[in-house]
């Protein structure tokens, strides 16, 4: 990148001092808080209520919590029926298991256009030692294909809370909320307002843009800080609404960028990287490089897997440098 692309802007958004939290924790607490004022709220789980944190709601409102046992397909159909009868339904499991029942999601939930939020926790390879069968690496790809599905993935606890509020009080149709098992650092400051459907630029720069989602946003900021230290000024965008992706907003946020790195704890096929390629190809084609999983997941510690797949700060930095080093096409 030439020095002319250096941004005149100041330091990158610095993560706040709030302690790291798992987005599933913020979800469980918010759902419980909202339960009191929203009698139409009903929550379902499939033998993972402690892990998904839906147990928080179950404790407070046992009559509006239904334990389906290990029956994700049955849970989704039941959610659809409840929602068709005026309830606002959250159905929860590990993302791999609940989105694995795609036909039930497609036909019973989405095609009926019902206010069911599918909550998939334990997203991505971050699940770690349990290995591939417990990892959702294809969930965004699947759910993004449904025309009315709002696909959300928060970057931190603050954003999670606001998303859950929107899903309970605002949104009218089906939604998918993708949450982490692991703790993630706070990337927003206290004044942040989640706008459904909008891209969320965390740092405005030029030349290179890093678009990240979920647990990878903090690493993107870390990589950006290193690049800033080298005199560069990358743009960093949190994409927390993965579908429908705001293509026009994205192009606007990328106005002074020529190269785009996408980072997600998900397969590089069909997720954030693909969504960005699609949006840009139709509007303003840019060189895009996708960082994510290119193979099945496997057992390992979360940090090891993030290192292996370049999903952490140092890995994203390396990918950014490689992309910047490419000769212009």
């Amino acid at each position, binding site marked *: 990148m030439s020095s002319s692309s250096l941004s005149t802007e100041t330091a990158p958004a610095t993560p706040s001092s709030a302690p790291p939290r798992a987005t599933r924790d913020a979800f469980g607490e918010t759902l419980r808080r909202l339960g009191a004022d929203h009698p139409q709220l009903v929550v379902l789980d499939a033998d993972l209520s402690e892990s998904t944190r839906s147990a928080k709601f179950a404790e407070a409102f046992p009559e509006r919590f239904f*334990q389906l046992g*290990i029956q994700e397909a049955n849970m989704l159909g039941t959610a659809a029926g409840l929602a068709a009868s005026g309830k606002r339904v959250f159905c929860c499991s590990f993302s791999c298991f609940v989105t694995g029942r795609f036909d039930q999601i497609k036909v019973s939930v989405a095609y009926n256009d019902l206010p069911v939020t599918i909550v998939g926790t334990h997203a991505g390879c971050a699940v770690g*030692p349990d290995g*591939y*069968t417990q990892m959702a690496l294809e969930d965004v790809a699947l759910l993004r294909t449904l025309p009315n599905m709002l696909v959300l993935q928060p970057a931190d606890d603050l954003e999670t809370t606001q998303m859950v509020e929107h899903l309970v009080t605002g949104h009218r149709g089906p939604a998918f909320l993708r949450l982490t098992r692991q703790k993630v650092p706070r990337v927003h400051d206290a004044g942040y307002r989640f706008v459904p459907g909008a891209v969320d630029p965390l740092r405005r720069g030029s030349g290179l843009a890093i678009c990240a989602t979920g647990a990878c946003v903090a690493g993107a900021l870390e990589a950006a800080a290193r690049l800033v230290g080298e005199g560069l000024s990358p743009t960093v965008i949190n994409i927390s609404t993965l579908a429908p992706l705001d293509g026009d907003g994205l192009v606007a946020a990328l106005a002074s960028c020529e190269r785009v790195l996408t980072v997600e704890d998900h397969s590089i096929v069909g997720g954030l990287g693909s969504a960005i390629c699609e949006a840009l190809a139709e509007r303003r084609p840019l060189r895009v490089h996708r960082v994510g999983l290119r193979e099945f997941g*496997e*057992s390992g510690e979360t940090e090891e897997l993030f290192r292996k797949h370049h999903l952490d700060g140092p890995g994203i930095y390396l990918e950014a440098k490689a992309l910047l080093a490419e000769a212009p096409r």
Partner: protein
Amino acid sequence: MDLDQLVRTLEEKAPRYRVDIVEMLAAAGSGHPGGSLSLIDLISTLYHHALRQRPSEPQWPERDRLVLSKGHGVPAQYAVMADLGYFPRAQLWTLRKLGSPLQGHPCRSWLPGIEASTGSLGQGLSVAQGIALAGKLDKGSWRVYCVMGDGETQEGQVWEAALSAAKFRLDNLTVLLDYNKLQIDGFTRDVMNLEPLADKWRAFGWHVITIDGHNYRQIIGALDEARQVQGRPTYIIAHTIKGKGVSFMEEQVGWHGVAPNREQADRAIAELRTRAGLPLTEAVR
């Protein structure tokens, strides 16, 4: 091997396998002790009595096949496989580590001897059915065993396979249910009751046998009986105790998916060895 000698062998091996399971999970720092310990007597008896396999030739075409549908219990299978020489014992301590063939849930492409990758509950019986159908097509004499969990049995797909395996008259297919009465969110009877379970499988057309899943003679008897049944699959309901053998884990829902720390593992190993009359000081690894 005559029956008494076989039972003695199984009795001698069981505490060692349990120690290995505890040590493996402690080394891994994560995993599922409860459902591995409830399962080990069934798995051990399967390998030592029923399964015709060649550890040095895991793909031997005439082998009997085992599908561990409740994949999270795989430490029990790994313990027996290591003992039989499928892989070096030292690999046990790499369980769940990056690059280890001992994945957190069994994976067919990582470890020879694993017939089917599992870990998403409810899928194994259908896969076992497919293997059994292939056995019929190829006029193979080998048998297929599928080991399942009680919580797992809530999955709708299990009941689809219950229908179809009876339709296909798969008398080369045997299910062993590790009926330990617990799952993650509590007792199976509270989460989603399965009873009357024997009646259900009988009504679906299966030959049903109910046993104590920690009694080797009963397990052997049921496996032998299943081999004699013609024209329908067999469903063995093995009543078990989750966490069996480690007193502080037994029947504790909290020990489903949490590994023991070093101190807990040492305590568990000491208890297992004391009860079996094994030397307390011997190194596990």
